[in-house]
């Protein structure tokens, strides 16, 4: 069964490309959100397997969205994405509770699987 994915990113062009890329790779993109508050709400409504979450959002930081989603029971796996490098966020990614981090330019089904197969936080 295909994993369901929620994409939370304020750049519509990136969401569209990511959705197409993941669909080709066999993922089911069940929803999209353009800001943090919507991302939290949709994640609760749709209960996806994976949330692909941009670190920089217009209203909340990705770290705050992770905290809110993980505060609910049975949270999905959350993968943070950014056009910045992981090193630009220091230890915040490791402390956030997200499953992992992928730079946007490196997003692929293989990268996603690699992170998902890693240890849960």
């Amino acid at each position: 069964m295909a994993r369901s994915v929620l994409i939370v990113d304020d750049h519509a062009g990136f969401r569209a490309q990511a959705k197409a890329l993941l669909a080709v790779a066999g993922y089911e993109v069940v929803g999209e959100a353009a800001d943090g508050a919507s991302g939290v709400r949709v994640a609760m409504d749709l209960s996806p397997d994976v949330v692909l979450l941009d670190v920089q959002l217009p209203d909340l930081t990705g770290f705050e969205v992770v905290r809110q989603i993980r505060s609910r029971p049975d949270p999905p796996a959350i993968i943070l994405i950014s056009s910045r490098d992981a090193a630009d966020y220091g230890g915040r990614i490791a402390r956030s509770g997200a499953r992992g981090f992928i730079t946007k330019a490196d997003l692929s089904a293989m990268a996603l699987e690699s992170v998902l197969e890693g240890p849960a936080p």
Partner: protein
Amino acid sequence: MTRRRCWLTALGVVLVAWIVGAEWVSIHVGVPENHFIDAAVGLSFVLAGLVALDRRPGNATGVLMIAYAVSAYFGNWSNLNIAAVPMIGMIGAQPSGAFIAHAALAYPTGRLRTRFERFVIGLIYGVNAVVCVVILLAFDPRADGCTRCAWEPAPFPSRTAVLTSLSLSQRAAFLTVPLFFLAVWLRWRRSTPAERRDLIPLWIGFAVVGLVYLMDGFASPDTTADQFSYLMWELQSVLQISLPLIFLWGLLATRLARSAVGDLVVAMDRPLLPGELRAALAKALGDPLLRVLYALDDGDHWVDADGRPESPPRPGEGRRAKAVTVIDRAGGPLAALIHDPALDAGLVRAVAAAAGIRLENERLQADLRAQLDEVRASRQRIVEAGDRERRRVERNLHDGAQQRLATLVLSLAMLRDRDGVDPALAASIEATTSDLKQAIAELRELARGIHPAILTEEGLPAAVEALADRSAVPVQVRTDFEGRLSEPVEAVAYFVVAESIANVIKYAQARAARVELSRRDGVLLVEVSDDGVGGADVSHGSGLRGLADRVAAVRGTFGVQSPPGGGTLVRVEIPVPAER
């Protein structure tokens, strides 16, 4: 001689005649007293009153002293048992105590200042007025044996009424005297330091009055009665002479204080350290709380001696209102002395005139300090604006170019992975994707150099750790604090470390470098050292110079030790206002 002085001289002649005449009456009727001392007491009040009238024409104290002398000697004249003189003498002598009480409470300005003071003095005058009316209506001199009093008896002659009124007026003192001292005490409590200094002679005067009052119980002018009583009588008379002189001394104290101007001129003759001018002015004026402000831009702005902006208080502003004397020079305001309102305005101006050139110098220094502060603040604003701009540019790169390039990479990846794509085209797409990723990495590095996101996200220690991790030369980082500092301080400290490590990599030929970040006693200490060739010079090259400027903008200090062959140590200290 001025017309005013002519009048005062004429008045003096009349008053001297009044005193001497009164004493002549006492001698003539055989009143047992030392007439010389008695006359001296009256003359001292008259003389002091006339001097006070001359020097302080707007001050009622002189009039009150003369009124006391005139009133007190009515008593002597009442011994002249002719016509209506005894009655007039008794009436005239009544308010003498009220006059001296009025002079004491109104001292040194001659004005009663509060409603309570006016009530107390009004009450004392009122008691005397009642006695005077009783005397006018009931006094019968012939009942007292005045056979030569060629004057019709009063409308309601009653010796008992007169004696009762006199007795009641004395008993009223049990009320009026405590009220009077209460008013005096309240006056002292409300007084400023300078006013209290002026009031001290008054307390000396009161001590004398009290002493005289006590001595009265033992005193007798009769030399045949008791030697001790007679001595007390002589002594209290002599002390009475000193009373008007004490009043006069206090009244003219501000004039005597002008000698302080001379001391100030001498003090101005040597170089003064910052703050000493204020202290010298405060000492000369006897106002330890004196403050001096300096006018800039023709009085549009005011600053203190350190160049800090401050406005002179408005009249009546504050719990203890201050007086403001603006000193003008060359047609414009030079300085403002904020002082005790009790100080004599003429004395304040005299002191300010004596310190004129020093005030001008200090104004120039204050102006310089104010400009220096403004330059510092301006430099800080420029650096902070630069940092804000760096953050904005980094954010724009992140939100714009980097996002678009990342999206493009995804598009190319999808194109490449499509079914049936020509292998040559796929290889070309792969090469383009690789170039794009390289461009993204370079852009990311550029953005990081403009303003590192980790500094905003994680603070200085984490940003410096990240910097060390990317360095081509091994860098050891030691930090002894956690938490955030203000954005300008974090940015300056970060760029000091970044530029220093860049210099280590480029020029130092070092095997290793070390960064220490420590925070103690309100100071952030940043040290970057290496074991390279040394020889770095702040005056050469814009890198270190620019760092020094950035550090100065946050009021920090910047130093470089770089002996040839001995490595380089960059040491920066920055005051840290508050944790974030």
